[in-house]
C-alpha cells in the first residue's frame, strides 16, 4: 500500500520531467492502473498489457468498441464443411513498422511461433488447436485445426492474436517483447517498465488519415487518487479505472467526461457444492434470496453496476437473460429451515481480492447473510493466498473454499470462454476456476456439443439450455455486472473502454 504510493509519487516526478521535454503537437497521456507485463501479446495474460499492445499491433480480426467482431488485416474467411480448414484473404498494401510488406508469411511466422510449445508463451493454450498454418500465396493464408472449433475466428480476434513482422521475429528472436514490430497505427519508441511506454505516429499506416495524434504516452500509476488528481490537473487526458467513490468529484470538473461503459465483467459468489451445507440446493437458493442486489449496487459500486441477470453477461455472444433474484428474507429463512438449518449456520466468505470495492462487497454480503442467520466470517485473500488456498488447491474433497467472491470477463466475447473455465467439470481447481466444484453431465455435454457445431441457431439453442440448467442449479449467487468507469478530457476523442476492460483507440484524436 505504502509502496504503491511511493511509486505513484516518484512516477509523477518522472512524468514532469518527461512532459517537459515533449514537443508541441498532439501528444496524449493515458494513465492506467498497473504496470505492463510485456510487449509481446502472445505472452500477456492481463487485459491491460494486451490493450496497450494494440498501439503497435493488429490482428487478422478484431473487435469494435462494442465487442462486435470486425475484420482488420484479413478481409474475409471461408470454412470448409469439416469445420477444420479456414481460408483467409488478407488485406493488401499494408506495411510493417520496419518497412517490410505485410504478407501471408508473417501470419504463418506469428502463429507458428504461438503454437510451438517450446516457446512457452502464455497464450499457447488459446492457439494450441491450430495444427498448421500455410501461406498459400502472398494474400491467402490457411489454418488447419486439430478439432473443429466454431469460435475460432473469435480466437483470432482476441487481442493476443497479433501479426508480428517476420523479419523482426528473425532479427530479435526472444527479444521481440522489447522490440515490437507490427502494422499498427503507432510505432514503438521506448518502454521504461515502471514509468511509461511511449509510442509515436506511424506515417505509413495503411488506414489513410490515421492516426490523428502524434504520440501516446502510456503511464502506469497504481494509486487511484493520484490518477484522479492527474486528470484534474490536466496532466493526463485519459484514465481507467476511475474509483467509484471519486466519480462525482471528477464530474464536477467542466473539462472532464466521466463515462460509465457497459462491461462483460460479472461478479458472483460461488458456493462449494462438494461441502455441507452448500451441497443442499435449498441452502444455495436461500443464499440467493438473502442478498439485495439493488442495495449492493448502491453500497459497493456507488450505482455503477447492474444486478446480474444471467450467468453470462449481456454483450457476450449467446448469453441468455433471466430475471434477477429479488431479496426475500422470509423465504430464505424458510428454505434454510427446510434444509435442516432453522437457526442458520456458520461459514466463511472469502474474497478473491482485497481492494476497497471487494471489502465493501464482502462486508455487505456478510450483513445480508446475517439477516437470514448465516454467520459468515470474511477473509480478504491477497493474490498469493488466493492462488494457494483456492486456485491451485489440488484436492477437491478437502478444498477449504466455501463462499467465494470473485469475477470474470470473457475476452473472446463468446459463451464458451464465459462458461467452460468456471463451470465445466474438468475446470475444477487447480486446472481452471470452477470454485463451486460444480458438475453437471448435461452442462458438460452441452459445452462440448456447442463447440462442434458451426450452425449459429443450433449453437444458440445449446447455450440457452446450458445457461438455463446453470441458473436452475445455482452453483453461484450471481451478484452484479460491473460498469467500467473511465474519465477523459473533453478534448480527447475516439477512446473507449471496451466491455472486457480493454481499450479501443483506433480513432484517437485530440481537439485543439
Amino acid at each position: 500500500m505504502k509502496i504503491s504510493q511511493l511509486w505513484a509519487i516518484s512516477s509523477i516526478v518522472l512524468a514532469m520531467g518527461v512532459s517537459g521535454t515533449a514537443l508541441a503537437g498532439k501528444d496524449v497521456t493515458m494513465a492506467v492502473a498497473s504496470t505492463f507485463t510485456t510487449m509481446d501479446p502472445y505472452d500477456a495474460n492481463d487485459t491491460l498489457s494486451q490493450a496497450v499492445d494494440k498501439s503497435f499491433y493488429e490482428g487478422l480480426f478484431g473487435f469494435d468498441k462494442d465487442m462486435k467482431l470486425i475484420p482488420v488485416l484479413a478481409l474475409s474467411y471461408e470454412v470448409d464443411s469439416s469445420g477444420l480448414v479456414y481460408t483467409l484473404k488478407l488485406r493488401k498494401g499494408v506495411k510493417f513498422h520496419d518497412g517490410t510488406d505485410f504478407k501471408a508469411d508473417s501470419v504463418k511466422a506469428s502463429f507458428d511461433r504461438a503454437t510451438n510449445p517450446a516457446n512457452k508463451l502464455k497464450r499457447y493454450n488459446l492457439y494450441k488447436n491450430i495444427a498448421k498454418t500455410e501461406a498459400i500465396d502472398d494474400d491467402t493464408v490457411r489454418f488447419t485445426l486439430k478439432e473443429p472449433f466454431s469460435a475460432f475466428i473469435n480466437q483470432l480476434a482476441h487481442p493476443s492474436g497479433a501479426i508480428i513482422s517476420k523479419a523482426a521475429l528473425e532479427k530479435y528472436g526472444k527479444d521481440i517483447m522489447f522490440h515490437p514490430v507490427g502494422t499498427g497505427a503507432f510505432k514503438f519508441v521506448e518502454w521504461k517498465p515502471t514509468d511509461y511506454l511511449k509510442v509515436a505516429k506511424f506515417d505509413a499506416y495503411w488506414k489513410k488519415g490515421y492516426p490523428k495524434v502524434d504520440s501516446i504516452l502510456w503511464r502506469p500509476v497504481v494509486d487511484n487518487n493520484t490518477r484522479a488528481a492527474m486528470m484534474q490537473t490536466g496532466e493526463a487526458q485519459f484514465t481507467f479505472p476511475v474509483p467509484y467513490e471519486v466519480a462525482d468529484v471528477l464530474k464536477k470538473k467542466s473539462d472532464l467526461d466521466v463515462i460509465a461503459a457497459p462491461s462483460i465483467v460479472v461478479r458472483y459468489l460461488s458456493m462449494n457444492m462438494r461441502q455441507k451445507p452448500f451441497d443442499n440446493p435449498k441452502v444455495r437458493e436461500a443464499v440467493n434470496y438473502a442478498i439485495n442486489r439493488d442495495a449492493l449496487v448502491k453500497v459497493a459500486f456507488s450505482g455503477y453496476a447492474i444486478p446480474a441477470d444471467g450467468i453470462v453477461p449481456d454483450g457476450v455472444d449467446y448469453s441468455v437473460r433471466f430475471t434477477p433474484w429479488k431479496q426475500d428474507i422470509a423465504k430464505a429463512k424458510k428454505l434454510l429451515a427446510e434444509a435442516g438449518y432453522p437457526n442458520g449456520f456458520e461459514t466463511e466468505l472469502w474474497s478473491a481480492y482485497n481492494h476497497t470495492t471487494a471489502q465493501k462487497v464482502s462486508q455487505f454480503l456478510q450483513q445480508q447473510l446475517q439477516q437470514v442467520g448465516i454467520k459468515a466470517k470474511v477473509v480478504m485473500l491477497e493474490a498469493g493466498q488466493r492462488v494457494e488456498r483456492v486456485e491451485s488447491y489440488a484436492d477437491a474433497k478437502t478444498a477449504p473454499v466455501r463462499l467465494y467472491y470473485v469475477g470474470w470477463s470473457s475476452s473472446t466475447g463468446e459463451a464458451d470462454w464465459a462458461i467452460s473455465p468456471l463451470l465445466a467439470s474438468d475446470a475444477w481447481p487447480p486446472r481452471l476456476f470452477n470454485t463451486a466444484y460444480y458438475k453437471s453431465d448435461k452442462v458438460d455435454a452441452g459445452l462440448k456439443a456447442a463447440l462442434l457445431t458451426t450452425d449459429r441457431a443450433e449453437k444458440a439453442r445449446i447455450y440457452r439450455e446450458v445457461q438455463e440448467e446453470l441458473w436452475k442449479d445455482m452453483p453461484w449467487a450471481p451478484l452484479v455486472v460491473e460498469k467500467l468507469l473511465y474519465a477523459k478530457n473533453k478534448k480527447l476523442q475516439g477512446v473507449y473502454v471496451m466491455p472486457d476492460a480493454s481499450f479501443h483507440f483506433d480513432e484517437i484524436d485530440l481537439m485543439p
Partner: protein
Amino acid sequence: MPEALSSVVTMTAMTREVRSPWSEFWRKFKKQHIAMAALAFVVLLTLIAILAPYLAPFDPENFFDYDRLNEGSSLVHWLGVDSLGRDILSRIIWGARISLTAGFVSVAIGLVVGTALGLLAGYYEGWWDRIIMRLCDALFAFPGILLAIGIIAILGSGMANVVVAVAVFSIPTFARLVRGNTLMLKHLTYIEAARSIGASDWTIVMRHIFPGTISSVVVYFSMRIGTSIITAASLSFLGMGAQPPTPEWGAMLDAARSDMLVAPHVAIFPALAIFVTVLAFNLLGDGLRDALDPKIERG
C-alpha cells in the same frame, strides 16, 4: 538566621511525614489542571467502553441504513453514517472498548514480563543481566512498528495477535527501566539492613525493591498505553489487526480512505477518537510523572 532556617526545614519535613504517599501524590497531581482533565477524559472513556452496549444507539456491525450512505451528522446519527450505512457514533463507542482493551492488556503484559526480567537482571546481575539485556538490545534494534509487523507476519493477523505483538515490544523498555531502578536501590542501606537480618532474596526483591520501582513503572505504563493504542490502530489500518467489520478505529480509518474525498466525516471522527485518546494518555502520563517525581516540587 541559619538556626531559624533549619528549624523551618525540620517543620516542613515533619508535616510531610504525616501525609501518606498516596495523599502526597494526589496533592501534587490535582494541582495540574491539564493532567486532571486528561484523567477525567480517560475515566469517561473507560466508562463509555464498559457501558458500550447501553450507550451505543445502534448495533455497530449489523445495523445498516442503505438510504443514508455516507451522510453527514444528523439528529439520528450524530456523527453521520459510513459508506456501508452504519452509524459512526456507535462504531466509535464500541471501538473504544477494543482500543482501550488492546492498549491496556498489551502494556500490562509488557509490564509484568518486563518488570520480572528487569528485577532478575538488576538484582542478580552477572549472566542473568547479560542475557536479558542483550535480548532487550536486540528487540530495541527494531523500530517498534516493524517488530510488531514481523510478529504479526509470524502469528497471522487478528486483534489477539496485535496485543501480543505490542506486548513484545513493550517488554524491553520495562525491563531496562526496572533494571536501572533495581541496580540503584539494591545498594541502599535499607536493603543492606534487610539482607543483614537474613531476609531471603524473594522477600528483598518483592517487599523492598519492587515497591521502589513502582512509581516510574506507573508513569511509563500510562504513557505507553497511548503508544500501544496508536500501534494497534496502525496495524489494523494496514489490514493486519482487527478484520472487517470489527469497529476498530484504525480499521475504520482504513475503510474510510476510499470515501474520504466525498465524505470526509467518515475518516475524521475515528481519526479524532485516536488522536484525543492518545493525547489524553500522554498528558496523564506527564502529570503522573510530575506528581510522582520527588525531585519536582511545585507550588
